[in-house]
Each structure stands twice: as structure tokens, then as C-alpha cells.
């Protein structure tokens, strides 16, 4: 993997943001390929531990959206 | 009405409309015979690429 690869972990709510990411695909929008989506049932599912853990695993940024 | 009704329906045509009629009826408690003259169901919609206005895949 290239050194300068940025890694963004995104936690997307199944009901809104995950659907929005689907829609971005349907609309053929383009965005950088640095994000990795983890689908969660609701942003209420988010625990601070997930964010800390993502950083510990080398994420450059964490994005929670819901 | 004294005549005994038959609880089944013949659906002629296996396009999107015929298929969905058949599904609705079968799911509501009627026996369905779906009749299609071609070798497969799906009709014209199966030949389409995308559908308007969402550009969803027709399949």
C-alpha cells in the first residue's frame, strides 16, 4: 500500500447516510476512494470505543453520519 | 349467490404487471395459474437497461 494512503473509517446509519452513499453511487458521483464504510443500524449504535479503536487501527479520520 | 365460487385465478401474461398480479393474489390466498406464451416470464421490462426517473437497474 502506498505511504500516503489516507484511511477514513465511516460509520453510516442504515436508514439515512448508508442510503445516501447508495444514492451517490446511483447518481454516479465520484469521490476519493479512501473511505471504508461500516454499516450500523442507527447512529445511536455508535460507541466512543468504536471511534477510538478505529484510530488505534491506523485510521486518519473517523466519520460518523446519521 | 349459491353457486360455489372457485378460489383460483388465471393470469394471462407474465410481464411485470401479470407477475405482480399473480404474486398479490397468491399472497392473499388465491391459487394462481400464470400463463405466458414465451419461454420465460419478465416481459419487456426484462429487456430494459435502466428505469426512469431513478436510473435504477430494470432487472
Amino acid at each position, binding site marked *: 500500500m502506498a505511504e500516503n494512503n489516507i484511511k477514513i473509517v465511516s460509520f453510516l446509519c442504515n436508514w439515512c447516510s448508508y442510503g445516501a452513499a447508495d444514492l451517490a*453511487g446511483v447518481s454516479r458521483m465520484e469521490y476519493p*476512494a479512501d473511505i471504508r464504510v461500516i454499516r*450500523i443500524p*442507527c447512529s445511536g449504535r455508535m460507541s466512543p470505543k468504536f471511534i477510538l479503536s478505529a484510530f488505534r487501527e491506523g485510521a486518519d479520520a473517523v466519520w460518523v453520519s446519521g | *349467490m349459491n353457486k360455489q365460487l372457485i*378460489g383460483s385465478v388465471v393470469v*394471462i401474461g407474465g*410481464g411485470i*404487471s401479470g407477475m405482480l398480479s399473480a404474486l398479490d393474489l397468491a399472497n392473499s390466498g388465491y391459487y394462481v395459474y400464470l400463463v405466458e406464451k414465451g419461454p420465460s416470464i419478465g416481459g419487456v421490462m426484462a429487456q430494459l437497461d435502466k428505469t426512469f426517473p431513478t436510473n435504477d437497474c430494470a*432487472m
Partner: protein
Amino acid sequence: MPLKYAINPDICLKLTKDKCGTCEEVCPANAIDYTQTEEHITINAGSIIYSPGFTPFDPSKFDNYQYANFPNVITSMEFERILSATGPTMGHVTTFPKLPLNPKKKKDKLLAQKRKDPKKIAWFQCVGSRDINKCDNPYCSSVCCMYAVKEAIIAKEHAGGDLDCSIFYMDMRTPGKEFEKYYENAKDKHGINFIRTKVHSVTENPETHDLNIRYVDDFGQIVDDTYDMIVLSVGLEISEETKALSEKLGIDLTSNGFCKTNSFEPVTSSRDGIYISGVFNNPKDIPDSVLDASAAASAAGDALSSARDTLTKSVEKIEEINVVGERPRIGAFICDCGSNIKGVVDCEAVTEYAKTLPYVEFADESMYACSQDAQSKMVDFIKEKNLNRIVIAACTPKTHEPLFQETLANSGLNKYLFEMTNIRNHNSWVHKNNPDIATQKAKDLVRMAVAKAALAEPLKEEKINVNDSVVVVGGGLAGMTSAKSLATQGYSTHIIEKNNQLGGEAHKLYKTAQGEDVQTQLNELIKEVENNDNITVHCNTTLESADGFVGNFKSTLKSDDKEFELEYGIAVLATGAKAFVPDEYEYGNDERIITSLDLDKMFKVNDTKLDTINSAVFIQCVGSRQPDRPYCSRVCCTHSIDNAIELKKRNPKMNVFIIYRDIRTYGESELLYKEARNLGVIFIRYEVDKKPEVTIKGKNLFIKVTDHVLNMPVEIKTDMLTLATAIVPRKDEKLANFFKVPLNDEGFFIEKHAKLGPAEFATSGVFLAGSGHYPKPVNEAITQGRASASRALTLLAKKDSLFTSGIIANVDPLKCSECGVCVSICPYSAPMFATEGRFEGKAEVNPVLCKGCGLCVASCRSGALHLRGFDTNQIFSQIFALGEVV
């Protein structure tokens, strides 16, 4: 669609000449059986639904477009196949598309050498529609404008932005939900050219096979232009075969071969017991065909309601294999989605990579993982390889998860032993210019999904008790129709109507587009509904609250300051829409300036004022198709033309003008447009930036408009101006919140699926009908009313087999500290303290109320709560998998 081969008996050598027989030899499944012959079977059934569909118009006979002779003139159906990843060119837009990909004939080979990526494509509208000179199809095919716009947009997407797409049309007809915005986007965002003209002729450059066209533009100038390809937007036709069968069935057809129906029974043919749906019942698009389908099912079922459940059998449930305690044996399936994924991602590499991941026993790539053959192969693989967890890397779980879960169930696996990851919408579609990075990302996503799947456990779904009474909100045409059908099927139904009588906006209408008197049939329907023992009508009543979920709703209703409660299982929202009150054209300043509904009222009461009118003007799109209301109100063109004809019939000497933007008389309503022109109604077009001007000068009323033929301003003195006002939604946010259903920007309800779920909401147990969905005429409102009933019926019929999701929270009582955070935080009141038993005082979760959001899980300080399907260790496993270096 079942991807199964069939033998064409007309050309099979074995069947015709008893030669060959190769297919029998090579088929490993021994599926070939030449001895099968035609059989005649007699079926006794209670009803028939006839939905024969249409045939695309064959333009070979049109000599001016030379479809039969020019290789680069093709039909829209052919172009549809060219755009498709499974089509002859695998989605690549190229000239000479009718040739085989690798031609064998010498002549074809020479032509194929001239193949190029087209730079300019033209669409010709109304080929085989709205035309009685070249063919006998006077009607509008309803769908061609939209599909041409779609094909142009997708073509540009496939071929790149510099592709020049032009659509040659007479009127742009985009009267469906979200269609107008699609059309506007095509112009503004995608840069598609719209040229209002009928192309006179097409010639071909014999060398290059480029196509030269000649037409007269908006300013009367003759224009010559060259295109690489021409797509003929062919109309929908009823085949001779369909007409012949209709005759055998004994049902009446219109002069164009469509089925004759009554607006109030829009899916019932002239013969008792035969119901019709789809394009055969007037040209229509997919959602309208889908509504027809459910409506026909409802009509056919209502006639047989006493025999329901007499012939059906219940599904045999496949015994679930117990995998608890087994080491995970994961099967990973990578979908190409035709070229949608494979066009960008190296699916083979991803599949090979998946095989190297921990616990993965098996990985396979398939062209369309969702196709039936791929599904049955998957079942075989699961059984053969003894797989106990499945990972699918394909499109979005939001649409396809249930399908794959069913496949798991069919192979005996609990449907939650499954994980889906989205390598299409979130990957190939959005990173199409970075195939390497997209492939890497797909590998990461698969690795994360595998890590999560390894921790998946079989989950249990709880049974839901369903209250089988129904509440219909809104007592207009759609609501009454829905209630009547559900009541006929034996369900207790309540209609909640805020006004003092049933019938809604239909009370204001004079005639339907087919000329039927609205009031007579409306009053009959009201009487039927009021006399139905299964229907309780609550007039002057409003809904004050709604709690609960499918099968278990509870509402407070208010009637004359009295409040009462109602428990029910299903809700149908049929709240309708209303006429827009115009804010322009001097409305309100002169009693001669009225709306379409005012004119209907005058007709209804046979107002004597009508006899004094010598000149009448209609202005279309008042409040519609403009930035603040960017949708077409669908019914106004037909309504005004209908009323114009009525005026002309009353007084043939009257001057009647219709000032319009596009005439949108879709389907057979086009015949009304023709009739109006024959009667001498004058049509004048205007542009939205050059609206007509209305002035009141003393006793006179003047309308000034720029005539599109003369390209000069004309002034019309009139005795009556009718404004064809927009239909506006009620934008009932309160109601939307009660049932957790969405509204679009304009305030119309958003249905479950624009194509396949037009009469229901994404919220389970809540259904939709009438103009609250989108403006619609009488017959379409009734169709949707019936459709909503049919969809609701499928749920009510499953009453005893309705289950919750398995994705719910549960408590480990040994860890619970009884702090009560989960109890107070849950918006659905699912967790509560156990009041008895061994764990009295500890929290427990009601599985029926739990929505599986995980809020309580995240808030639990003791780690006592788990969210099945999205458990903490599963999410951690995804995060850890991401950290692994590949």
C-alpha cells in the same frame, strides 16, 4: 427472470428434420427432451386477469426514416439493449449496433470496420404514436418521452460527456412523479438538446453511413444536420394476437385495440370476471402497470372473496440446520453485476483474495449474483461445501439483502448467518476512474465483511400479533375504494374523514376524461361504502395521534371535541391533494377569471352564464412546472381540453383558445386533443419566461400572448378565462410523523419504491393511495385505491406468519446493574424492568417493540446489552480487519 434455455421448435434441426441432436449429447444435466409436445390443459378458475402487454411499434414501414435500410437508424428497444451490460455490445455505445459483435458475413465485416464511438445521437419522438398519416396510432404511448430522456442521459454516462444528444419532439410529456425534474436536469445538468420539430426526412452518406437530417426549427428556418446514429422512439402497440384473443374472450376494445373500461372500475373489462392490467389497459409506464397489477388482483379477488384460502397450500418450511458451536465455514460470493462492478473492479482478483481470508472455505464470482440460476447454484454450493456463513459482495443490502437471505433459508441456513458488502454503489460506481484503488477497496470491504460474518450467530424472529382491522385516512375516491375492497375481503375497516361527507375533491368534478358523469357514480360509491357492514365511516373526524407498528397501531381520534381511541393493524393514507389558488393572471380581480374546478361547477349546475359566452380562454400550467412547484400536475391538460370540447359542443361558434406549454394528453386522452382541434379549438404555445398577460380594461378582458407560429404577440378579447391550476399536496407533516413516512420537497408522500412499490410505504403496514402520492385523475386514483387494498391484503393474509426482525437488542441479566439508562433512553419503550421471575428488577427487551437501533446497547455502562446482528464484537472485528495490512 429464470435464465433457462428453450428450444425454438420452428428451426430446431432435430425437431424439424430429425438431424443434429447435439444439445442432448452435451447437456450435463440431461435436461433436453425432444419428446415433449404441445399439450392442451383445461383450467377451471374463478376469475381471469388479462395482461398481455404490448408490442413495440415496428418502424420498418416508415420510408422517411429508413429504419429498414440504414444500419445506424435503430429503435429505442434496440438502443436499450445496447446500453445494457448484458446486451450485444456489453454496454458499449457504438455505431452499426445491429451488426453482430464479430460479424461473419463479408458485407457485415466491411461495415464493422467503419464502427466508431458516436459523437452525435438523435432521438425521434412519436414514431408510431400520435400519427395517423404513416400509421394508425392516434394515441400517445405515454412512456417514450421519458425513456428517450433516460436513454440520452445513460448514453452520455456510458460514452462520456462530449457525446451530443438531441431529442426531436412535438410535446415533451413528463407528467409523472419526479419526471419534470428529470427532464429539467437532462437539459440543465446533462446538456441534452431538446428540439421541438418533426424531422422531415433522413438521408445517408453512402460512404460513412452517417445520417443527414432536415427539419424546420422554431424560427421557421430549414436546418440540415449530421448525426452518427438515430434512435426511433417507438410507441406501444397492441398486437393482432392480443386483439384476436380479446375477441375470443369476448371483451370490448377501443378503436386502438386497448381494453375499454369505466373510470370507476378501471381494471374491469366489459365481461364479468375478466380483469385487465398493464399497457393493454391504456399505454402506461412501469409504476402505473404495477398499480394496475395490484388493482386487478384486488378486483379479481373481491369477486371471489368467499372462496379465498380454499385452494392454496402453505409453504413447506425448510428445516434449519443448527450451526451453533461449529467452526465458521464461510462462502464468499463476488458479483460482477454485469459490467457495473466488473467494468471497474477486478472481480477475479477479489474472488481469489477472498479465498485466502480466514474461515473462507469457498469463493465464487458470478455475473449476476441475484439471478435465479446464480441463486440456485448458491444453494448447491452451501450444501455441497457445508458452508455455515455467507458473504455477498455486490450491490446494496438495502434492496438485495432479503433476496439473499431467502436463498440462505432455502439451503437450511438461518438467514442472519449472512453479511453483505457493497462494492457497487460505494465502490465501482463512484471510483470508476480508479480501477486499481477500487479493486483494493473491494478487497478491504470483503475482508471486513468476512471478519464480521465469522462472528454471526443464528437469530430468532418473534411472532407479531396482528390486529386485522384497517384505518383508511381520507374518504375520497381512493380511500373509499381501498376501504370497500378490504371490507369485501372481510376486514373491519374505518374511514377517517375530516369533512362532513365522503367523496373529497371528486364532488367538484363534472365529467371524467372518458365522458362519464362523476357525480352519479361517486354517489353510488358513497352509498355502497356507507351501507357496507364492515366499514365504519367517521366524518368530521381527525387523527390526533398514532403509535405502534405493523399489526398494532393505536390512535386517538377527535370528532366534534370528543376524543376516542382506535386500535388497528393496517393504515392506508389517502389524504389526497387540493387545487392551487392562483396568485397571478389577475385571479380574484374579475369574476370572469375562474379556475378549472369553477368551470366544472358551472357545467354541473348548467349555469346560464355559459350561454352568454362567445370567447373562452384557458391558460395551462398555472402554478405548475415552475421553480417553486417544479412538477407537472398531470391532469390539467386533459381537463381543460375536455372542458373546451364541452364549450364547443354547447356553442360551436364560440372561440376557444388553450394557451399551453406542452400538451400532455398521455395515452388515449390524445384523442381528445385531436377532437378539440377538429372542433376548432385554437392552441397557442407559450414559454415559461414569456407568460401570457391578462389585462382588465373597463368591461373587457384581454389576454396577450406571443403566438408560436406567427412569432408575434396576439391579443385575445375574452368573456371567460379559465386557469388550469396546479394540484398541490396537503403536505401533512403531522400525519407523516405519526406513521414515520417521508414527504418529498413538494409535500407529496414518498412511496416505498418509485417503480415497484407505488401503493405502499417503506414503513411496514402503512399503505398509500390517491393524489397524496401524486396528482391523478379519477381512474388512476381508484386504481391506486384498489392497489393499496391488494397490497394490504397480502399482509393481512399473512397474519399468522408475521415476524419481527431478528436484529434486536437483548440483555445479559447477569451483567445488568439495573441502572435504567436503557429504559429511559429508548424511543420505542422496548426495554423495561422485569417484574417477576429470577431476574426481577433487571432490564429486559420487548422484541416486538425493539427496532434494533442499538441506542441502548451503546448507552449501557455494564456491557449487558447486545445488539444481535450488529454486536459490539462484530463491529470491532470490522475495524480490526481494516487495520490489517494486506
